[in-house]
């Protein structure tokens, strides 16, 4: 390569640049891997097996996931089931951490549970870590807002 005449080397470098940029322009990339509804459920169960919910919560026995029809089956992105499980785990502890009916020590334990686990990979989704960090500093309102969303999320009944 070093022995290449300068102009030829330059032309080669230019061709590489044009090839990369050109490929990026025309190539849509590989199709994102997808799951059927069964795959989502399997992912959810697998993630649920490694997480412990807050006291009083349990994993749903049945998930309401639209499977589509035989002709047009539904496709879900890989990780969707894992995210659902992670979010339910977050909801269980966040709801406990902001509950006014629990003793301060129990709320604090819930916060620490959230904080410790959310910092440790692997978590499939970006959980609202800043809200937990804020709550640990005494700013509970953001976590309360996040916890209040849990009951409104499709497919995720609060209990």
């Amino acid at each position, binding site marked *: *390569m*070093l*022995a*290449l005449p*300068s*102009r030829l*080397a*330059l032309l080669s*470098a*230019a061709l590489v*640049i*044009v090839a*990369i*940029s*050109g490929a*990026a*322009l025309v*190539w*849509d*990339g*590989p*199709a*994102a*891997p997808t799951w059927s509804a069964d795959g989502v459920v399997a992912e959810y169960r697998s993630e649920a097996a490694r997480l412990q919910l807050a006291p009083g919560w349990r994993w749903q026995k049945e998930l309401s996931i639209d499977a589509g029809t035989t002709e047009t089956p539904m496709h879900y*992105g*890989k*990780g969707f089931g894992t995210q659902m499980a992670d979010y339910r785990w977050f909801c269980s502890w966040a709801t406990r951490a902001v509950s006014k009916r629990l003793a301060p020590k129990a709320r604090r334990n819930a916060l620490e549970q959230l904080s410790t686990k959310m910092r440790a990979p*692997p978590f*499939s989704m*970006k959980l609202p*870590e*800043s809200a937990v960090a804020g709550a640990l500093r005494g700013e509970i309102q953001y976590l309360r807002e996040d916890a209040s969303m849990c009951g409104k999320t499709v497919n995720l009944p609060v209990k």
Partner: protein
Amino acid sequence: MAIQVQTETIERRQLSIWLAIAGLGCAGALTGLIAQYLRQDNGADGALMTLGGGMAIWVAIGFLLARRTAGARPARDRIAWVSVTAAAYLFAWLIAYHALLGAREHLGFAQVWPQMRYWLVAVAPACLALGFIATESLRKDVLGDICLALPLGWSLSEIYSNARLGGAHIAVVSIPTLLVASLPLLALRRRWWSLPVVVVTVLVIGVPFHLLFPQFSLDS
């Protein structure tokens, strides 16, 4: 004997070109990783995140590095070679930035590619522009002054937008971006018309850019 010396000189020059390309590639990868790391950090009221997702400061660093290589290149094909080194920086930056995004967010290539591809397309024209500006900024005339002022011009929008967001954004985004974009001005000729040239260039580039792309970042 003379032919042998000439061959050795050519080979040494070629080696230095490839080393420069490799060096800028490494620098691009490193800054891309830093940018993505900051992008994932929501500290300082989100200012670190804004800095990581910004464009101006990272392109300005590329300009400074490309300008350094421009000074070491022989005049023949200088703009073209500096463009190639700029491309190495930009490609490495984009690939490192998105690779770390995929690794930290558990995203596969298929999910990262749609976000990355249009920036890769932009590298071809961008490296030519950066190579031209970096090389011409070495000139000791008005065009040289204009080229030295361009980084501040394309950074003006991010400096101004973040200055309006409060102390954290001023300290973390506006001031570092301003400092990096102003570094090329140290090479400015000390002529009385250099300052007006810089001011006009910054405004002519910066104001329309801000009006057209007020939220310009890698996420937009």
